[in-house]
């Protein structure tokens, strides 16, 4: 059933391509804005680059999260989904995994202009970088999917999601920025593996809480 739900989410996106186009364009616009705002040739820019990358990812993810639930309100599709014989925790998992896939895809596309426009040299050990991006995205979309589901039937839900999400995501933002920064500067994994543990702990804690509590926030 979970596979079917993820397929449904991705299929809607594949047909409409609304989130994909919006998120991809937004991330490129942000990168161009960064290039205009900061002196990319400055020696200190490399220290900031990881922060800028995750700032772009965070804002882009909010766009995706809002879209992922807004189409559910059309024709009251969400109520229909809730009345189907599906474990509600699996609906949360499907939103999380599909959002994660979409965000990761967009980040890998955005990585090209990011490295090119901001004149960042590709660090060695690319696999580690991919690992950090996957963990960071997974953590962001885990809590993001849960909170968007919670806020979707409130007034001003578009405003509410970032206001609640950003402070709760503090550990993820810090851990992602720190680990990406260490990786970009070529530090060995043993120097920054604490951040990996923080990200993994976050995913485990909020993945389990989200699965257990999603039923309560979607009660009619």
């Amino acid at each position: 059933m979970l596979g079917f739900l993820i397929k449904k989410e991705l299929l809607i996106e594949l047909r409409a391509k609304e989130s994909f186009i919006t998120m991809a364009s937004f991330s490129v616009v942000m990168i161009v804005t960064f290039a205009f705002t900061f002196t990319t040739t400055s020696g200190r820019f490399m220290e900031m680059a990881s922060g800028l990358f995750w700032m772009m990812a965070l804002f882009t993810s909010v766009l995706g999260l809002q879209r992922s639930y807004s189409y559910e309100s059309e024709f009251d599709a969400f109520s229909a989904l809730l009345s189907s014989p599906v474990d509600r925790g699996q609906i949360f998992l499907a939103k999380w995994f599909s959002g994660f896939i979409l965000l990761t895809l967009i980040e890998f596309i955005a990585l090209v202009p990011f490295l090119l426009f901001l004149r960042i040299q590709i660090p060695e050990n690319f696999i580690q970088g991919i690992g950090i991006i996957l963990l960071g995205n997974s953590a962001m979309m885990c809590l993001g999917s849960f909170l968007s589901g919670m806020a979707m039937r409130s007034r001003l839900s578009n405003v509410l999601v970032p206001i609640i999400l950003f402070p709760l995501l503090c550990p993820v933002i810090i851990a992602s920025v720190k680990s990406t920064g260490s990786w970009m500067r070529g530090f060995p994994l043993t120097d920054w593996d604490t951040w990996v543990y923080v990200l993994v702990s976050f995913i485990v804690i909020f993945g389990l809480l989200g699965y257990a509590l999603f039923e309560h926030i979607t009660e009619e």
Partner: protein
Amino acid sequence: MQPFFSDRKNFAWLIAVMALMALNLVSIIYRTPMVPEQEWAQKIFYLHVPSAWTGFLSYFIVMVAGIMFLSKKDQKWDRVGLAAAEIGTLFIALVLITGPVWAKPIWGRAWIWEPRLTTTLVLFLIYIGYFMMRSFSEYPERAARTAAVLGIIAFADVPLIFLSVKFWSPEIQSHPQVEMASQPPGILLPFLFSLFCFTILYFLMLRYRIHVLKLHDRKDRNGI
């Protein structure tokens, strides 16, 4: 329902809290020793630390009330959660005000990204979102459920926020409150007394606020 302070027990509690808080203030101003180099600025810690303790205790109660509400579906627990969230945020705001007042003369800067203070700030921001979420919900039942869930999530996030901020800036010194337990009795006893006064003040405020929320609920139900 009779007014809260018409109850003799509650009125006695109010008088006791007022007397103890007055005694606490006198004790902080006149009885506690001056710490060299910190002078009067140090005395703010007799208010700052108890406020922080009360704020975090309150957020813990929000989490417990959230769990109880989700399992029992009793409106009583929603009132407990909301009252604790409101009072907790008030005390946390006090922490965020008194922290920089102390830090400015001691550290030379009003704000430092110290792990405890930063965690307090982040929690404060989360609870701003909590109140917004409650007030923007269209149905009271849904607002109660989402608030209960958010209270649980916010508290579950505290250790991760604290740890990540601690590792983020390990070079930043820790609060002197860490050494509070090893302070001489001249400092420790008034500090523990202040902690006690704040705790009983908190429970009086909590009971009073729950009573007021109950009246609100009754008024809404009766359409007055």
